[in-house]
């Protein structure tokens, strides 16, 4: 009989049912979406911060007092000993070898213009950086390359699709200006009696020392410098909170005792603070909105449950014990909470996935551990909303009927 009455209670008024479910479902959606988003954003945020580039530098432990460009190098193979993943996020490590060399554009005899001044043909001294060109986007995502092939309008793009062929190189914008080269030209690099040539794939704008450099494949630089298997430093980009990065540093320092491991404090410090601010902001909003939503839905439920006042009076008149009467309505509220909550949870997951995709380009992975949390919260809210009935249960039945008549 209990469940028979329950079924009738739930089906009593279509309009009311729809309204209750709407209130519960919207509350559930919001809370689920917010919690899911909040939990997910921490990870996404730390990854977003890597848009600044490398935050850890590995260099040789011993730096001579008198600095010479090619002194103080480390073994390039150390890159292989850097973990490729740290606490669930991908780590990027790219080696760099710097040397000073002479650069000159290679002009084929047919292209040579007799009116070119001698100065234009004399070599320019600049810094050559050998690196894994394909790895640049991971440690320098902000850099911009410009390819202008055969006079077509150059389109700026990030270093993503940078040179892959072993002969290709990137030239910083200022270096390109001084050399008078555009993408497609060839460069001759010479240092210490050794020579290398390369084809200019694109020009590079970084807003830093790289604008004055020529970036070549690591092997070519090693050959030019006469330092096979060596690198000046390794730039590492490791996403994570301040604490996670600290742990990474400790691990590296312990695992690579012959190498100096340093955080790039410009970024690590600012990021720690910014991450805290943004995270707290999100948390604050989520908490406030969540709390207010809970209150809102509870009050809505309370309003709706007042309709049951007459039924409570009637059942009391029939001699129903308070506990039994309340149980009926609390179970009704709980069931509605469960159904509305389930609906809300599903919609909330979908919503947070959509939001995640729109904001970060990657949908938020649904965390199913939120489900029991939200469901129980919704049930509690619905039941708490039935709370006014407890007060009604104390009132004498005659009073309820009097209020009715």
């Amino acid at each position, binding site marked *: *009989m*209990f469940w*028979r*009455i329950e079924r*009738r*209670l739930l*089906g*009593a*008024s279509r309009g009311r049912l729809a309204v209750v479910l709407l209130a519960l479902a919207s509350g559930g959606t919001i809370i689920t979406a917010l919690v899911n988003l909040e939990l997910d954003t921490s990870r996404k945020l730390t990854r977003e911060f890597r848009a600044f580039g490398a935050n850890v530098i590995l260099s040789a432990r011993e730096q001579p007092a008198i600095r010479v460009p090619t002194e103080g190098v480390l073994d390039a193979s150390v890159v292989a000993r850097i973990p490729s993943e740290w606490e669930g996020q991908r780590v990027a490590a790219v080696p760099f070898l710097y040397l000073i060399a002479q650069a000159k554009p290679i002009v084929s005899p047919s292209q040579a213009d007799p009116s070119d001044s001698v100065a234009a043909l004399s070599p320019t001294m600049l810094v050559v950086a050998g690196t894994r060109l394909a790895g640049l986007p991971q440690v320098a995502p902000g850099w911009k390359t410009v390819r202008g092939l055969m006079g077509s309008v150059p389109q700026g793009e990030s270093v993503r699709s940078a040179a892959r062929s072993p002969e290709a190189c990137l030239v910083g914008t200022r270096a390109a200006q001084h050399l008078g080269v555009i993408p497609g030209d060839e460069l001759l690099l010479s240092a210490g009696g050794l020579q290398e040539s390369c084809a200019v794939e694109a020009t590079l704008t970084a807003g830093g020392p790289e604008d004055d450099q020529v970036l070549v494949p690591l092997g070519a630089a090693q050959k030019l410098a006469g330092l096979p298997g060596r690198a000046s430093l390794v730039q590492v980009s490791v996403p994570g909170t301040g604490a996670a990065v600290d742990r990474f540093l400790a691990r590296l320092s312990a695992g690579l005792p012959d190498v100096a491991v340093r955080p790039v404090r410009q970024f690590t410090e600012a990021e720690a603070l910014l991450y805290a601010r943004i995270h707290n902001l999100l948390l604050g909003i989520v908490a406030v909105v969540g709390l207010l939503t809970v209150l809102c839905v509870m009050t809505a439920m309370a309003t709706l449950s007042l309709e049951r006042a007459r*039924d409570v009076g*009637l*059942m*009391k*008149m*029939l*001699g*129903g*014990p*308070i506990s*039994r009467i309340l149980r009926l309505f609390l179970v009704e509220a709980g069931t509605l909470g469960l159904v509305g909550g389930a609906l809300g949870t599903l919609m909330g997951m979908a919503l947070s996935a959509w939001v995640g995709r729109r904001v970060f380009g990657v949908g938020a992975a649904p965390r199913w551990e939120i489900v029991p949390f939200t469901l129980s919260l919704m049930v509690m809210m619905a039941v708490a909303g039935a709370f006014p009935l407890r007060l009604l249960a*104390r009132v*004498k*039945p*005659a009073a309820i*009927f009097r209020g009715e*008549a």
Partner: protein
Amino acid sequence: MSAMIEVRALVKEYGPVRALNGVSFTVWAGEWIAIMGPSGSGKTTLVNILGGLDTPSSGRVAVSGAEISSLTEAELARYRAEQVGFVFQQFHLVPYLNALENVMLAQYFHSMADEREAAEALRRVGLGERLEHLPSQLSGGEQQRVAIARAVINDPKIILADEPTGNLDEANERIILSLFQELHRSGQTLLVVTHDPSIAQLADRRIELAHGRLARISAAPMEEENGPLTALSRPAGASW
């Protein structure tokens, strides 16, 4: 006959207002009492207290030997479930339960719901074909009959009716009153609040209230030659 209801010096106050001001009377088992009086005389208050829906400010009320004036809420609920059956002018059926379930609800709060017994009770009031109907699908008279079936299902000591035919037309009124007569014949104690003298005629005695006090108790004649309600038809298919 033993005393079914004993009321001594019953007082009920609502703030400054005294709805009942020292009422005393006795009702014997099996009696049909008509409670009459102008509006504001305290009729409904008296019925509420007798039915355990309200508690007196002072005075004593004993039903079937048990003192009810100082029972707790829970004990009053028990009292209502076991000893009292209500019939109201507005029927007060649960709108989303059908006829059968409305009667079963009373069983449920008493002890346990029994569908067969409930169906039987409805058949006896002539609603055997309407078990599954919702109150909105029943006429006023049929709804009141469901209320009556609900009132008697738990074998109560007393039945309290507050203007039971107030919302009904003449034909349905006749049906309801003949049901009451059957109940009376089978020994049920009935207290019926009414303002209609022709209904009061059917009762054994009349209690008249005025301004919260007992104005008069008189015996109503069991039959009246030219009364308008002499010829009452029994509803088809009903038997007691």
